């Protein structure tokens, strides 16, 4: 059965690049040694396995390599991460980086309560504002799962499909149209 599963999975990996340029580099190969490992998550409905780690760019994690101690919370422009800053439009009127990224410890994210959240559980952060999507995602109805309808499934983090810095899907090129009946002749 492995052979038939890699077909869609292989295509899937390519598709995950949409809207998340960082994901393409990270697919399949973890960046640094300290990247979070995929974890087994027990769920009341069955066994779920996290699909992939969060889509970090190469060498970007752990963030504490560069960031030590707190930064200035009042600034609104960055000296690095230019490509992210250029594309950032996730409620950019009202949000900026430190609304999600923790100022004191850059290796984690934080909820609005201040509680820390590892990157592998970033869905808890998304779920704060996008509660209905989060509930549907937990049930497997929002987003996708692959695997067994009657057993083990592989799920995806929100960020495996949605670029957290520019989440709106940009549109993709469709596959070719079908042949018209008059185009099929012998």
């Amino acid at each position: 059965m492995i052979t038939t599963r890699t077909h869609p999975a292989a295509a899937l990996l390519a598709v995950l690049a949409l809207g998340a340029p960082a994901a393409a580099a990270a697919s399949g190969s973890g960046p640094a040694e300290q990247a979070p490992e995929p974890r087994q998550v027990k769920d009341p409905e069955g066994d779920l396995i996290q699909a992939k780690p969060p889509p970090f760019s190469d060498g970007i994690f752990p963030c504490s390599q560069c960031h030590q101690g707190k930064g200035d919370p009042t600034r609104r422009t960055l000296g690095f991460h230019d490509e992210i800053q250029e594309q950032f439009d996730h409620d950019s009127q009202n949000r900026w980086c430190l609304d999600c990224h923790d100022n004191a410890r850059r290796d984690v994210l934080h909820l609005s309560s201040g509680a820390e959240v590892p990157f592998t559980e970033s869905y808890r952060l998304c779920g704060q504002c996008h509660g209905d999507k989060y509930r549907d995602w937990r049930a497997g109805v929002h987003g996708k799962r692959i695997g067994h309808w009657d057993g083990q499934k592989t799920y995806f983090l929100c960020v495996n499909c949605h670029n957290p810095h520019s989440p709106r899907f940009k549109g993709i090129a469709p596959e070719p149209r079908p042949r018209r009946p008059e185009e099929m002749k012998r």
Partner: protein
Amino acid sequence: MKFVHFLKGSGRLVTQGGRAYWLWMGALLVAIAIGAAGYTRQAQVGLIATNMRDQVTWAFYIGNFTFLVGVAAAAVLLVIPAYVYQWKPIKEVVILGELLAISAITMCLLFVLVDMGRPDRFLHILPLIGAPNWPRSLLAWDALVLNIYLAVNAVVVIHILYRGFNGKSYDKRVVVPLVLFSIPMAVGIHTVTAFLYNGMAARPYWNASILAPRFLASAFCSGPAVLLILFQVLRKATGLDIKDEAIWKVAELMSYAMFFNLFLLGAELFKEYYSATEHLLYTRYYWSGIGTHRALVPYAWLSLACSLAAFVLFLLPRTRRSWLGLNAGCILIWAGVYIEKGMGLVIPGMTPDTLGEIFEYTPTANEWMVAVGVFGIGFLVFTVLVKVAVPIMSGAFHSRAGGTAPAGEVG
């Protein structure tokens, strides 16, 4: 032994004839050869040699099949006056109607065979060896009733002709029940064929209760037309005594059927155009086209014009009894109903298709070739049967020279 004589004699009859006969037979053999060539290509390449595709899955072959089932059913227009009302002028010629029924059913079965994707699997529809889907599948019913109708007509015809050949009259106990049975069978074959279309909820153009009555009306108004022409030919060519009254009575019955056919068409058109739901789309495609798709429109109006003209010609006794008017009417009604019940029924039912796509179907050359071949075979069967039957009817072909065959009592 007598039967062998019968067969040998029949063989001789079929191979003897005047120039007109041989020209006709020659043309039929050419048609059959064309059909064989066409079907060979289709068998090699597959049904992709036709223009049928997933969007229009039934077309020219099934359209012809539908028309010919009607022609086969039309024999009943002779059988009822002959056997139920014992009307002598028609009783003398009713066997010709049965011969037409046999030829028409042969063509029907051939058209189904050439339309099938896997004709090598025809055994699958037979009971015991196959798995016919009774009672739910109308197509399984159609296969059953068509073959029963063929068998009934074949048994009656062979019995009457063989008895006639032996100078004897037919056995009423054999013929009359079978012939009376063939009346509801004739209605049955065409009703079942109508139900085949009628029962499909997916095709709103067909999913109308009026389809079965329309089929019967169009069958009765067009089928006997070929017989009327045949009667006139036979009178001249063989001296067979067919009374004018027989011909005029059949024409009169046809004119009633024509009226009913036109009335039912009007009823359908009212329903479609007045309620004007989205289902009007199919009717509109046929009569006025949709956008640039207008392939069937000229045929729709041509068919109506032919049917109307034929109706007028057959309705007025003056034109009905004039040989020009009668024959013109026969040709017109055949053309009108051939279009209406062939392509005019099948194609609009599938255009647009169930997902709104319009694929304009027109038959390929290959389909024309195969259809010509099937018609060739059908007419050949009819010609051979008539060539044997007529001398038996007139007493010229019988087992003993000098034996009296009761002329005019055959059939």
